[in-house]
């Protein structure tokens, strides 16, 4: 699988082109530069949407991979350990307390609460019996539920239920236009930053003892990873809403095929996540054209199918 990254990038190009050409208004992207109206549609709606999907898919996959390395467990993703619920809690609080705050402040608050929630999860699972690996995802799901319940409760009291439904239930990209997705670049940048520390994350995934033996400061790496995961989740929740599944599935698939040498596999996970999410977004836009099906719904179905196939395929080595 030396060419995995090449294959992924080759898949991204036609998908991106298709995404640019798909929409209620029919425009020809090749003559767009000379047609001011088509150019407007392209630059204000199609391109932002395509970029938003790519960034979200890539960043969530990388976040999932980091999280799985940090907690040494395959069955968790940024959407199942309480990160997105905590981010939504912060977002809700700032919306409630200071509705006029600029988006940067809101996202900073969401990232901070997301970080607190993820750190709480990590602190909790440290106290679990070490061999019971299945208790880790269960703890994450329970914690998500507890924080999610608080969010729902506040939202009911404040009459903001509509908001949290988009944040936590099904993310979708139909609302993305220029000016409303740019913070996702930060999520992408945070994910890219993680690549530079890829070796450190791979060593940490071997356990605290091995990491200490190799002279790695485990706390610093843990903090860096948690910050990246929280930043990515907060940006995604705040701009398009949580996309289920992708941060869980893509890292699993990539790891099954390529292993966990993160320096090699993180870029593949990023490209793969971007390609998969874009593919699902395209299905959602095309299958009931001109209506749209939220990408979270499509993602659930398509992702589940691929995942089950990979799960029950014979391993490469016996």
């Amino acid at each position, binding site marked *: 699988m030396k060419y995995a990254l090449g294959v992924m990038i080759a898949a991204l190009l036609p998908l991106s082109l298709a995404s640019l050409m798909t929409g209620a208004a029919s425009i020809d992207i090749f003559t767009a530069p000379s047609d001011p109206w088509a150019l407007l549609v392209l630059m204000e709606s199609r391109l932002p949407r395509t970029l938003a999907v790519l960034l979200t898919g890539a960043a969530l996959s990388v976040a999932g991979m980091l999280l799985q390395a940090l907690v040494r467990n395959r069955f968790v993703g940024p959407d199942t350990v309480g990160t997105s619920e905590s981010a939504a809690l912060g977002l809700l609080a700032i919306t409630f307390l200071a509705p006029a705050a600029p988006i940067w402040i809101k996202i900073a608050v969401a990232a901070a609460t997301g970080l607190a929630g993820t750190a709480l999860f990590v602190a909790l699972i440290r106290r679990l019996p070490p061999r019971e*690996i299945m208790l880790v995802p269960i703890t994450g799901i329970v914690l998500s539920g507890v924080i999610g319940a608080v969010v729902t409760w506040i939202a009911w009291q404040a009459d903001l239920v509509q908001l949290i439904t988009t944040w936590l239930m099904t993310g979708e990209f139909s609302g993305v236009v220029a000016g409303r997705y740019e913070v996702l670049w930060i999520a992408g940048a945070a994910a890219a930053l993680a690549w530079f520390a890829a070796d450190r994350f*791979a*060593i940490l995934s*071997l356990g605290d*003892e091995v990491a*200490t033996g190799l*002279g790695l400061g485990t706390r610093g790496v843990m903090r860096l990873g948690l910050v990246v995961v929280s930043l990515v989740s907060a940006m995604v929740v705040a701009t398009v809403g949580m996309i289920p599944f992708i941060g869980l599935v893509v890292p699993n698939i990539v790891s099954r095929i390529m*292993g966990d040498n993160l320096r090699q596999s993180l870029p593949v996970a990023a490209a793969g996540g971007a390609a998969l999410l874009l593919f699902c977004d395209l299905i959602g836009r095309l299958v009931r054209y001109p209506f749209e099906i939220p990408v979270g719904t499509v993602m659930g179905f398509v992702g589940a199918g691929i995942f089950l196939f990979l799960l029950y395929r014979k391993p490469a080595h016996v």
Partner: protein
Amino acid sequence: MIRLSGVSHQIGGASILNDITADLPRGRLTALIGPNGAGKSTLLRLIGRLEPLQTGSIHIDDLDLARTPSAEIARRMAVLGQQTVIASRLRLSDLVAFGRWPHHQGRPRPQDRAITADALEAFGLTPLAHRFLDEVSGGQAQRAYLAMTFAQDTDWLLLDEPLNNLDMSHARSLMARLSQLVRASGKSVVVVLHEVNYAAAWADHIVALKDGRILAEGAPQDVLTENGLGALYDTPVMVTQHDGRPLVLHHF
């Protein structure tokens, strides 16, 4: 020389180590032996800074363990704890290559790759190098971790029960390799051993621990005596000689 002075350790109120003061010699193969719960693993883990030091001080040659950055220690001393199940899907070659990480911090040089290849070869892992860690047997995984520790190429090597999961042939060859590292390359090795005859056959220096205290230390001939071992393990043993070294018998 590793110098331990006044090292004590408690876990949840229970005293595991009591005022240990000892010198572990440089250029020797030192074995820590003793009954279950004697504190030998804890002592090794304290020296290897896998556990934070509570009381006392530990010096590794000229370095004070408590004040030296972990990254610097990693270039001086390699430590391998007992392995638990790890879900990571690293290839064995990647795992062993991480032994060089303290020296290059993410930018491997040609000599790092050469040392990695040597370590894989030395532990008979070259044919398995492309396998994932979760697709090999427990013994093979253990050898891969050992190879990683060897690739770290440090003056000091600390191993906690390295013979776990190894069959007789691999166990023997590991002990022979450790002994050869000491004789030929001037390295110093400290190893926790469960089976006293491996210590009898290969160690230069033995530290016998019981109930968190040092019961005896010195050359194998002096420590591995019928009275000494009987008191250490609270069980009668017979000690004979084989090929100029003690041989401990318990089947009578």
